[in-house]
């Protein structure tokens, strides 16, 4: 199992594209693998014949363990020693390593079949009876616990330090217009008061990442209310024109991304990464856009957003969001953002605070656009208004610095022509 994302520790085999005995060529897709972020292709690294498919579809396998063997045509394969034992180094060892549950095709004569007992042994989670009982009572999936006992056996102390299944991400955000239906089941009552659903890869990553944010990072929050009358007018005009040209429409979120990117070029102090012993101030603006996906969220990145046209941003955002929802993003497409935008406007959220996506120093949380009575030039008038809250990492951004950026952003949104300056 290759590491298919920078933070991947294990992968779930979603689908095998090749079967035992199939000829394969370097670069050909062998299987689809769900990592902690996305569904990725596991490709052949050599020409030959696929043998000893040792991880069944649906199985989670540790990075570094054997999922199959590529042999030269006619070459015999011995038992795969690594398949029976966790091949990962200590710390990330998973008991499901090298599962041999279903060999998808009958083993040819040349192949030494893995003993049945070894297969059963490999698919089994090893845990002491006490650990099993504790896991059941606590609703912990033993497959997700690293065992410290002999042969990776999960024992009492491993459960005492295992994360509880309730640990999950703080509310962050979404940008897309449609919001996917949660995969978390709400089944008919069967008598049980609750269901314990194991953390998926993405939710584990969310939990880890966000817990590394709000706790350790000294957040502070700045809120401002933006008049969106002109932006709304500009959007209507633009969309009319784009519609006439047969292009896609521009959303408020696209405008906000564009304005944010532009404002960041004026305030590079907010376009930065905190790097423990230094702060990296970026000369490019890569906007991470929080997208809700089934069972989690991910922030695909619009690169060099400060240099892209609104139409380009719109197209790219739409395309990235769609692929995020189908779990088809490449790691390069969701890493490396310098600042993030999170939008819950479509849920009628007036205002909220977002959790910083480290190592970035800031994120803005965008609320819904609502008509409000506002005093303009001494007259009470209905205006479309929107609240923006910026979360700042105080180690990088001070109050006045953040406020100055937010003021520029507000001005750009209130007068979209300012973006041309």
């Amino acid at each position, binding site marked *: 199992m290759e590491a298919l994302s920078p933070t991947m520790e294990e992968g779930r085999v979603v689908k095998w594209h090749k079967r035992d005995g199939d000829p394969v060529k370097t670069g050909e897709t062998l299987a689809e693998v769900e990592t902690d972020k996305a569904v990725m292709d596991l490709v052949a690294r050599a020409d030959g014949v696929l043998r000893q498919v040792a991880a069944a579809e649906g199985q989670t396998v540790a990075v570094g363990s054997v999922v199959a063997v590529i042999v030269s045509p006619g070459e015999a394969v011995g038992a795969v020693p690594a398949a029976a034992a966790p091949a990962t180094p200590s710390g990330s060892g998973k008991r499901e390593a090298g599962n041999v549950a279903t060999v998808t095709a009958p083993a040819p004569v040349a192949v030494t079949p893995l003993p049945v007992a070894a297969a059963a042994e490999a698919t089994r989670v090893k845990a*002491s*009876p*006490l*650990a*099993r*009982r504790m896991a059941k009572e606590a609703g912990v999936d033993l497959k997700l616990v690293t065992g*410290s*006992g*002999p042969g990776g056996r999960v*024992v*009492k*102390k491993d459960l005492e330090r295992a994360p509880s299944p309730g640990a999950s991400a703080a509310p962050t955000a979404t940008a897309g217009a449609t919001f996917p239906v949660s995969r978390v089941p709400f089944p008919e009552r069967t008598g049980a008061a609750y269901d314990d659903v194991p953390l998926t890869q993405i939710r584990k990553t969310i939990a880890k990442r966000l817990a590394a944010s709000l706790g350790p990072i000294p957040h502070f929050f700045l809120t401002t209310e933006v008049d969106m009358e002109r932006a709304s007018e500009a959007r209507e005009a633009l969309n009319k024109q784009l519609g006439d040209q047969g292009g896609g429409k521009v959303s408020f979120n696209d405008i906000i991304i564009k304005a944010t990117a532009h404002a960041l070029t004026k305030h590079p102090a907010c376009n930065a990464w905190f790097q423990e012993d230094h702060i990296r101030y970026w000369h490019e603006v890569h906007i991470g856009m929080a997208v809700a996906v089934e069972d989690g969220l991910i922030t695909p990145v619009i690169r060099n957003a400060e240099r892209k046209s609104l139409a380009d941003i719109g197209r790219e955002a739409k395309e990235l969001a769609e692929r995020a929802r189908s779990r088809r993003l490449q790691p390069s497409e969701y890493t490396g953002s310098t600042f993030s935008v999170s939008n819950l406007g479509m849920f009628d959220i007036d205002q909220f605070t977002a959790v910083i996506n480290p190592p970035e120093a800031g994120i803005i949380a965008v609320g819904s656009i609502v008509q409000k009575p506002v005093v303009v030039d001494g007259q009470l008038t209905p205006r479309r208004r929107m609240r923006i809250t910026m979360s700042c990492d105080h180690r990088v951004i001070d109050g006045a610095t953040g406020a100055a950026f937010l003021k520029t952003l507000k001005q750009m949104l209130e007068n979209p022509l300012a973006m041309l300056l």
Partner: protein
Amino acid sequence: MATLTYRDALNQALREEMQRDPDVFLMGEEVGVYQGAYKVSRGLLEEFGPKRIVDTPIAELGFAGIGVGAAMAGLRPVIEFMTWNFAVLALDQIVNSAAKILYESAGQIPIPIVFRGPNGAALQLAAQHSQAWDSWLAHIPGLKVVAPATPADAKGLLKSAIRDNNPVIVLEGEMLYNLKGEVPEGEHLVPIGRADVKRPGRDVTFICHSKTVAVALKAAEQLAEREGASAEVLDLRSLRPLDEEAIVGSVARTHRAVVIEEGWPHAGIGAQVVDIIQREAFDQLDAPVLRVTQADVPMPYNKQLERLAKPSADRVVAAARRVLYLD
């Protein structure tokens, strides 16, 4: 409370029970004039006379049989074997008569008899005279088997054994007779079938009996010193019946167990204890239960080899480290 040796605690139990019940009598090799090979019966001939303190020829099967007959006739004999190694000769009377008669008489004829004597190895008595018969005897339905580790338990269990209406085996030890400890005066009865926590602990249970209680206590101290781990020492005291509740209760607290016994590993008492644990405390176990026993060989005469063959505190600590996942 008086401090007595194990042998004097047994002596006290015998004296008190003989004073209490004129049907109780002691019979065996050298119990009278010689005052007992290990002086357990010191002073008894003088006090109770030759009708109740009976010296026998060297004929274990014979006097064990006389004892069974006396019990059938309504007396309460205490049969002393100079060692349980010699009692092998009397096994037919113990197993086929004493243990069976109540059953074969359809409950009409109880056999209130005690067979007692030192069991297991002492020092350099070699292969034929260094054997622990615990599991042989505990195997037999119709017998009760007790194995006291302390003077107080020796007194309390022997008294209970004498008053019991079934054949009771009392396993003592040459190396225990000099052990000193506080012994309650007078009516001190230890119920048969009740284990005793000799040292409370949190992390692992040492299940032991007889001479291995001292081994376990020493190991518990070393474990605390070297690893900071806390071992509970559970003294079974009775091998039949076994105190399942105490065994399961302790394992439920500590989640790990090492079972220690003087006998050989194959089909030993520890195997029976482990059976109880895996059956009744399965969900409590955090590690496989390990056993520390005598090496699976006839006891060597060589002093160093004998030391290595016997269960030791070092071996118990090593087993504890494994069940605690410290290795």
